[in-house]
């Protein structure tokens, strides 16, 4: 190759020395306001991982294994920080969504297979969110045939009518319901010493049951759709490389909050259900089971959190899917576009919402099977997605001077290896059975 590589950064003019100094001097004063402008992608993508599927997994983790596996949640949170940060950075630096980049770097076939899998998994996950809304509403005595259509209309109206800023603010307000879980956790009077030990001392009985729950915890925390979403969102929010430090704060805040909320769910279930030897299979059951042990308030808070989390995720999922499909096919994709300018974008949005809600409402649909298959698909999809992201992050042509160095790439590889190990162990155990 005869020419020097041309990268986005090479085309930048050298900054004037005085300007650099001015930047440094003013740095501290502007930080808070800058952060507020950037906040959103990380917080939303992180918090929406505490959706009904997530809460269910955390409930089971706590109810079956007490405080012992809390460290799995810690590891998941660290992986979440790593890859959400990576996704956001790729979005900001390239200005492109994950689907378009995978198509550009890995070809049409790889991109299409990945995105088709993502769409199927997202429809299933959307169904899981609406199922969470249905279960939560029924705890309050509201029929699912009322609650689910109402929720579908509400989230669609928010996303489609509210425009970009509207959605973001409403969603962030909505995520306040997660405090409910923290309250529920405290009301259950947990053994904090045991919880702290479980969080930092990694022990695990190596059984099929624990491997499943550990993999599920990793998979539900680090969801493929969340990774796709954060990248598109960072692009759509028109963030620049100057925002990267703030974006990192945003991502870490979102991921840590996600982890903390998960921790309180686990703790609440460990302190009550595990102590009593009760078993649960879904989050609504966990809420119900909390009542005799921690009081009606704890139950109601748990159910409210479930509905709020489901609404948040149900708003993001169709949107994330639409971004990916439009991006893959090179069609216009922005919430600010009119329906006639971006038909594919809005058609995908409608399809995901309608099918997702329909799966919950139509009698005779084997919903449990759909939800289990979705979890499996999400776990399988996660690996190639992380590998793609890793490849893009290391690509000098795409990332320029923001390319991940070999040293910085190490943690990604460790995380990918850990997830591979979990999925492989699970696969082996399934076959052995």
């Amino acid at each position: 190759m005869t020419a020097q590589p041309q990268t986005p950064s090479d085309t930048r003019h050298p900054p004037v020395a005085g300007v650099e100094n001015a930047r440094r001097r003013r740095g501290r004063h502007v930080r808070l306001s800058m952060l507020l402008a950037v906040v959103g992608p990380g917080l939303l993508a992180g918090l929406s991982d505490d959706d009904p599927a997530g809460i269910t997994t955390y409930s089971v983790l706590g109810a079956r294994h007490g405080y012992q596996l809390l460290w799995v949640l810690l590891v998941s949170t660290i992986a979440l920080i790593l890859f959400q940060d990576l996704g956001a950075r790729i979005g900001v630096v390239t200005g492109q969504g994950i689907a378009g980049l995978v198509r550009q770097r890995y070809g049409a076939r790889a991109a299409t297979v990945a995105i088709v899998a993502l769409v199927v998994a997202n429809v299933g996950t959307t169904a899981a969110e609406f199922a969470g809304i249905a279960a939560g509403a029924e705890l309050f005595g509201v029929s699912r045939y009322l609650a689910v259509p109402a929720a579908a209309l509400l989230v669609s109206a928010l996303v489609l009518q509210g425009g970009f800023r509207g959605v973001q603010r409403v969603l962030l307000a909505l995520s306040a319901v997660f405090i409910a879980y923290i309250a529920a956790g405290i009301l259950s009077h947990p053994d904090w010493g045991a919880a702290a030990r479980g969080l930092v001392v990694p022990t695990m009985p190596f059984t099929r049951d624990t491997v499943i729950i550990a993999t599920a915890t990793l998979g539900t925390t680090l969801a493929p759709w969340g990774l796709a979403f954060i990248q598109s969102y960072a692009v759509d929010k028109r963030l620049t490389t100057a925002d990267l430090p703030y974006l990192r704060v945003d991502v870490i805040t979102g991921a840590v909050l996600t982890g903390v909320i998960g921790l309180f769910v686990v703790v609440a279930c460990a302190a009550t259900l595990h102590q009593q030897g009760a078993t649960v299979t879904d989050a609504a059951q966990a809420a119900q089971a909390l009542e005799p042990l921690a009081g009606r308030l704890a139950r109601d808070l748990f159910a409210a959190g479930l509905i709020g989390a489901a609404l948040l995720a149900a708003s993001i999922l169709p949107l994330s899917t639409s971004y990916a499909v439009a991006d893959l096919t090179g069609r216009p994709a922005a919430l600010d576009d009119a329906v006639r300018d971006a038909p594919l974008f809005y058609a995908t949005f409608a399809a995901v919402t309608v099918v997702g809600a329909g799966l919950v409402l139509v009698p005779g649909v084997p919903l449990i099977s759909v939800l289990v298959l979705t979890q499996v698909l999400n776990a399988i999809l996660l690996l190639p997605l992380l590998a793609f992201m890793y490849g893009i992050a290391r690509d000098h042509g795409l990332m320029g001077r923001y390319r991940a160095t070999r040293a910085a790439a190490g943690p990604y590889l460790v995380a990918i290896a850990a997830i591979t190990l979990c999925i492989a162990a699970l696969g082996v155990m399934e076959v052995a059975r």
Partner: protein
Amino acid sequence: MDGLISVAGLTGVVLRNADGAEVGRIADVVARWGVGSYPAVTGLVVRVGARQAFVHAEQVAELAADGARLDSARLDLREFVRRPGEVLLRHDVIDHQLVDVDGARVVRASDLYVARVDDRYRLVGVDVGMRAFLRRIGPARLRRSVVPERVIDWGDVAPFSLPGAPVRLRTPHERLRELQPGELADLLEDLGRSERHELLTALAPDTAADVLEEMDQDDLTEMLRDAAPSLAADLLGRMEPDEAVDALRSLADDDRDAILTAMPTETADHLTGLLAYPKREAGGIMTTHLVMVHAADTVAGVRAVLRERRAHSEDVDAVVVVDEDGRLLDDVPLFDLLVADGGVLVGSLVGPPWPATVTVDADLDRVVDKLIANRGSSLLVVDGSGHPLGRILADDVLDVLAATRGRRWPWQQR
């Protein structure tokens, strides 16, 4: 369609020598960007066993989806080394973003077509259709049964530079210049970051400034923050002052300072002065491009001044007549100057109706009321002692009002 050869379809196709013996399989098609609308194919990258070799285009007798043929039995196999200006059509162009200049939109290439033109293979078109995309996902057989669908003539395409390749949009596509600033603004909004930067720097600075004026506020803010302060300063300096001030307002303090520092002091001082006025008051809306003349000037003299200010024609709908102390006497519409005799003194055109004025601190409602009452195309902004400071054109007011349009929720109305 006959004669169009799909580049995606060529991948994996067997290359035979003149004797019909298999040499290898086509991995990619090499073309050279540069002169002319239709880049010439300079060769093929061929997979021979585990090696990748380069076959010069002159050695290729025939390219077709069902097999390619060399013109001799002997093959000169060299390692492929990318020369300046050369691109790999499959690896570097297919699935990447391009600008369709004719349709003024950003597209992603689903497939490319080469054809034999004057005894050479040339890149002639790009397919952006869904079907072309889908057939590449299927088996190779499907990939080779090519039905061109949504093909754009390569002459209407502006490609971007590639990693490692020195060709940039520096000699921008001829037709890019024919696009309206609004269309260019839409293109910039749809492109990835490096492509966007490349397109912007490929435009003439004055055009680029016009394009920025047309951009959505959020996108404009992003462009300015992403550009080097010196480039942002240059572009802002070329924008109309009121537009430049609007753009500066949307930036964080340190970004704004960086850009102002990179400007010539005079421009920076002027813009800083304008920045001091609140956004939704007369001072924040007005443009400071005023053509000021005295009553003793002749109409012909004023016309000469107007000719010099041609660049700001959009901001001038009347000429301000001031007295010796620079205080406002009248605002003479261009129409009056056009129909008046060249030798006549401007003073003779001064008279009722007197111009509508507001002070710099007049709020938006007052400006709108005055404009409606006056039914003119602009208002003058004056200071407390009657010195003209700027002009508010009806379209500036439209911009301010339009900014609140389409924002359905109260919190969206900044």
